[in-house]
């Protein structure tokens, strides 16, 4: 790869107290691609995802060493502005987590905290984000209704729209479809495919079909270690590590 990767991780270790949860991770993620993180539950894939926008900072007793570069910048530097990092590296969570506010206010939340106050500027941002998240047609008549009245799938797409409104470069998705029904899952997957044209996407999934369907690269985690990373089609046809093969052929996990 000649160009600089969007995200470069090297020598990354993470400890929860005595528990060595991530062990010496190395990974490069190229721009505008979808990278899927797979592995059995408890393997550290979600924990790894949360190191990329420093969400682990919220958890008491976590210690992190090593390098995580986003656009060549070490995000674990002392003087890193975490808020502005998270603005660039956004996150969609396992369970939809809309705020108990109106649909409009949910999407406008990000732009507002980043300094856009005028309604005339917010309206087009909200509409554009909802369109990008393929939700506009379903909610355009009830923007002022509470977001909690939406279905689970709609709520998850709302959360994606809310994220797109702050115009991040990188989207981190933590099993974004695990709480959704199959139809909503399909919609979110299609959406992810479209978003790839403009964003770098890293998604955690426990569902290997999903990883195979949507991602360009796949990384396999096991017991806090990154076993193997490869292009998705190669990974699923000819894995180079025995453990990967065992996992994707369903021998464990």
């Amino acid at each position, binding site marked *: 790869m000649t160009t600089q990767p969007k995200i470069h991780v090297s020598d990354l270790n993470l400890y929860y107290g005595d528990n060595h949860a991530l062990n010496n991770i190395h990974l490069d993620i190229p721009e505008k691609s979808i990278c899927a993180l797979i592995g059995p539950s408890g393997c550290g894939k979600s924990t790894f995802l949360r190191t990329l926008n420093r969400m682990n900072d919220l958890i008491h007793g976590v210690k992190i060493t090593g390098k995580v570069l986003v656009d060549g910048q070490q995000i674990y530097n002392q003087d890193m502005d975490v808020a502005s990092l998270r603005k660039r590296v*956004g996150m969609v*969570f396992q369970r939809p*987590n809309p705020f108990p506010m109106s649909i409009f206010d949910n999407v406008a939340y*990000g732009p507002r905290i980043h300094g856009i106050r005028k309604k005339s500027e917010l309206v087009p941002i909200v509409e554009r984000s909802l369109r990008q998240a393929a939700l506009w047609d379903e909610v355009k008549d009830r923007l002022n209704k509470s977001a*909690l009245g939406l279905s689970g799938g709609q709520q998850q797409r709302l959360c994606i729209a*809310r994220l797109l409104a702050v115009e991040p470069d990188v989207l981190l998705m933590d099993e974004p479809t695990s709480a959704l029904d199959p139809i909503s899952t399909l919609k979110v997957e299609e959406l992810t495919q479209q978003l790839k044209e403009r964003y770098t996407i890293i998604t955690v999934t426990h569902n290997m079909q999903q990883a195979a369907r949507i991602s360009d690269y796949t990384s396999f985690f096991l017991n806090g270690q990154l076993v193997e990373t490869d292009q998705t089609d190669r990974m699923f046809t000819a894995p180079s590590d025995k453990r990967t093969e065992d996992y994707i052929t369903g021998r464990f996990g």
Partner: protein
Amino acid sequence: MDLRMKWLFIGSASLVSIIIFSIILFVGFQGIQVFRDISIAEFFFSSSWAPSASEPRFGAFAFIYSTLLLTLLSIALAVPLAVSGAVFMAKIAPKWMRELLRPAADLFVGIPSVVYGLIGLTVIVPWMGRTFGGPGYGLLPAAVILAVMILPTIMSITEDAIRSLPTRLEEASLALGATRWQTIWRVLIPASGPGIITGIILGMGRAIGETMAVFMVIGNSVSVPSSLLESTTVLTTAIVKDMGNTFYGTTWSNALYMMAFLLLLISLLLILIIRLIARRSETP
């Protein structure tokens, strides 16, 4: 045996209902009697209270006015500090500090109101007198003491409300690049709104009904106060002050029962509001 015990429990439960209804009926009935001798308009809108004069007057307006003003004032003093204290305890304070503050707050809810009154009388009133001139009695020292008394209540309830919010909300906000302050101000406080309002209403209830602490610092002269440092009387302290001089069944005594009935109605109204808030926040 089983059945007999069951009826015993049902009986106790009924007794609780019977008690509250008898309180409302007894106090209400005794209070309403006052309107046989004086008009409703005089009682509520006249501020002339001279029950032992040769031509007795029973205008309770000054008491009602001061009660409402005192309640609002103490809420205004207590709420900002109580809510920021609650945020501090729920989101910012280190664990050891929280474990110190929480029992301390409970302790202060339990301190008898006469003790608060004594502090008001021996510390706050003289201080007000020195600082602003005059004897130092009035609504302001009473509001300060009440604010300290209701602060722990409002703080504990608000803290519980903030703490009971799912972490997902906080995560969502932080993941969008919000700072902690933005998250608190724009997400956590609005989302715990019903809890905060419940705390404020409970604090109001306590402030309206508080008697002893207020009695000791408010001065107890009958007048519509023109300043916050002018001696005045509220409903509760008017009852305490006059009750000893009256005989059961006189207009004077009935007027005091009417004031108690008024206090009772306000308290019941506040409980009703809390129930409405709880019901509304259950259905999103």
